[in-house]
């Protein structure tokens, strides 16, 4: 058994029990329903900002984009302004493609050694596809949840919910995003334990968020389709949080508090973990810089003078030999030590 995911799984189960049992104690609903979520949100926001500021505090001394296409050089050579941006516009498009469509991951290939001596590289789309599904599904679920935090519910939120449930299966209607999220998380987990190399590099901190997000999606689906949570009560409660007039509503049920607690834990965990890739990708110097370092000087704020071996020192060492072979020199050899007659070029 791999301790990395066992520990993570146990941690999530403990969190589940903590919330499920905890709300049954006096004051438990206030603690898990109001205090923890508020605290979590504050930690998330401050933690996130703090991390981004911390990154921003370190300068980018050199212009180091990873160029993935033709540079802009001669006018008749077509340059790849997105994969090797020569303008800010190119960088913006590159970043959009990266953040929204995972452009780099789309390139992914799988390398195999075949017939003992032939290496092949096949397009490997699954990681890209499921990662994209995961992020988009998560985003859609999150966006749909705005209906619990707004009154009246904006039309765009209603529209997304409508599109999300367009299959109209069952009642309440099946939301595709929830199912997709669960499927994608499952895929991402399975590849971590089934692909030997990925298993080898995976840490507890890689499994933990997967289990946690699985738990969030699972409890959400449970409430919506099976335990049929009192949605009117939930909305009354969430609106009380939004309006900073928090009060607990009786009878929402344990699963709801588990769901809320998982989300809170995720929020707290976020700024201190790899999940910060959400902010980090925007700060990645290999992606967010224009490749124009020969056309426009990039300034390094901490550039300092260094010791160099000057031409004079060089000539001092080699002057005789240089003169002998007819290389021009700055200073001729002083007349008092003439090894051979002075020559002029």
């Amino acid at each position, binding site marked *: 058994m791999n*301790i990395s995911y066992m*520990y993570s799984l146990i941690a999530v189960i403990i969190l589940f029990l903590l919330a499920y049992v905890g709300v049954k104690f006096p004051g438990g609903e206030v603690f898990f329903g109001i205090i923890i979520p508020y605290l979590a949100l504050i930690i998330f926001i401050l933690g996130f900002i703090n991390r981004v500021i911390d*990154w921003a505090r*370190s300068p*980018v*001394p050199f212009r*180091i984009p*990873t*160029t993935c*296409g*033709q540079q*802009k*050089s*001669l006018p008749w*050579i077509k340059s790849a302004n997105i*994969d*090797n941006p020569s303008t800010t516009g190119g960088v913006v498009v590159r970043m959009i493609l990266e953040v929204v469509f*995972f452009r*780099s*991951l789309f*390139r992914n*290939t*799988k*390398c195999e050694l075949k017939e*003992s*001596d*032939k*290496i092949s590289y096949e397009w490997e789309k699954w*990681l890209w596809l499921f990662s994209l599904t995961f992020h988009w599904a998560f985003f859609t679920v999150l966006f749909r949840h705005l209906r619990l935090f707004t009154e009246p519910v904006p039309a765009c939120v209603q529209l997304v919910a409508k599109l999300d449930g367009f299959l109209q299966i069952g009642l309440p209607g099946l939301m595709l995003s929830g199912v997709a999220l669960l499927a994608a998380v499952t895929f991402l987990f399975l590849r971590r334990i089934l692909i*030997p*190399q*990925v298993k*080898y*590099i995976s840490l*507890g*901190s*890689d499994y933990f968020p997967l289990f946690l997000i699985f738990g969030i999606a699972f409890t959400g689906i449970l409430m919506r389709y099976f335990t049929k949570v009192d949605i009117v009560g939930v909305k009354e409660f969430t609106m009380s949080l939004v309006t900073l007039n928090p009060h607990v509503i009786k009878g929402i049920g344990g699963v709801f508090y588990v769901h809320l607690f998982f989300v809170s834990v995720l929020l707290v965990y976020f700024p201190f973990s*790899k999940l*910060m*890739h959400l902010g*980090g*990708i925007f*700060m*990645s110097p*290999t992606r967010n810089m224009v490749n124009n*370092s*020969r*056309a426009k*000087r*990039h300034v390094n704020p901490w550039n300092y003078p*260094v*010791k*160099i*071996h000057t*031409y004079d020192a*060089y000539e001092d*060492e080699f002057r005789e*030999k240089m003169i002998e072979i007819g*290389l*021009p020199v700055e200073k001729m050899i002083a007349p008092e030590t003439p090894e051979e007659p002075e020559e002029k070029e």
Partner: protein
Amino acid sequence: MSDVPKPDELLSNIDYRPSRTGWMDTPVDIQKGIYSYAANPKSVEYVGLPYPRQWNPIEEDWQLPENWKEIISKGFRERLDRFRSVKVFMDICVRCGACADKCHFFIGSGDPKNMPVLRAELLRSVYRNDFTTAGKIIGSIGKNFKKIIGARELDLQVLKEWWYYLFQCSECRRCSVFCPYGIDTAEITIMGRELLNLIGLNIDWIATPVANCYRTGNHLGIQPHAYKDMMDFFADDIEEITGVKVEPSFNRKGAEILFVTPSGDIFADPGTYTCVGYMMLFHYLQEKYGFDITWSTYASEGGNFGFFTSHEMMKRLNAKMYAEAKRLGVKWIIGGECGHMWRVIHQYMDTMNGPADFLEEPVSPITGTKFENAKSTKMVHIAEFTADLIKHNKLELDTSRNDHLKVTYHDSCNTSRGMGLLEEPRYVIKNVCNNFYEMPANTIREQTFCCGSGSGLNAGENMELRMQGGLPRANAVKYVHEKHGVNMLSCVCAIDRAALSASMEYWVPGVEVTGVHEMVGNALILPGEQKRMTDLRSEPLPGMEEDDAE
């Protein structure tokens, strides 16, 4: 190469399944054939880097300074504060593993610590332990918990692991093309090597070229008279082959352009033929158009092994280019065919040693083309320069003189992923030779594979490593060799010319290596030249053997 396993042995040794024990529990095992020798203390001392000493990687005691942990920790902090890249890349990796099988050293060795993600984790684990809140809190609960979040303390074993694997990365950036966040292992290796250099842990194949370059202007330690001697020797060769006497000039004040190329072109076959190609091109342009260019013995190195040592050492060596351009009073600079040299020029030089306000914006004196892309750095790649000449029909070429060659082109890592020079060399090649075949798409352009010996790993004692790392490139060459009969692998990098020659001999016998400008030299019709019987390697041109016999 006597100790190196045979190619089929090396192939059958590759096992991509990682060991059963976790990587933190697998101690480093420094293997002969993989590691490079320790830096010669004289070289370290010559450039004033700290802790020069005799030490041996395979001995237990590395003669480290007493407070080495403190030095590393302080150095790490400094670099986190100076480089956003390091800080961000330490924090945001999600270990998706997309980079794992993109590294030529992993593909060729199967060693899991050669997966870029794990190479970086070697440093990240220490970073988490020493510099992150989560690491400190969770680490204080207990050692097991530390492991779960991938944190560990820096100890001698960890340090040795760093050293061993940071000198098994050629800073080629292929992984960074595939990383969804653009995490660049080259950045991590560069930082890691800087840290190692703080306690005197360089390898000799980097440290000695650095010292040589500092003193004589070039890595090979060629002194000015020997440099000129060698070029005179090339001039004689050219005269023999073409009947034309070329006279390159050196250290000449008032020339319009300074030319800087890697010293490998002067002293190492087959790079020397590329050098001959440059000399012929410059002579041609001088005769036809009054082109005015000088070579320098002081700035006689384009390459920069300082880049593989530290940012500071890179700057110290690179400074000679601008210094010499200023001293000679030239207008701008042309740079020869080299890989990492061009990453340094393109992404670092102006920032480090600029502004070059004493130079002029480069304009080709022959075509009038303004090299707008180089208007600040004032340095133009020779492939850009030559492509422009050909486009404007300024060169008389007899492409049939390359008809004995079936050519493919190897993009060098640094010019493709640290610059984007992809079409210029291809345009030149296609205009000087008639048989050109591309290798498979996943192995060229931005997805190109390292020669296996970049970033100072081109030593002799680590030949097994080099052949492992060279496998993916060689395998793609083998494909076009078998499919199209390709017999010449062209490139624009001096390390490539040296490294690929060894790799081809080992993996794909029958394929030779050439620089692009060697083929230009073959095709270029010099004014007043005699009928050529041989190519620049003094091998008979096709059809000429029979002429001799008749």
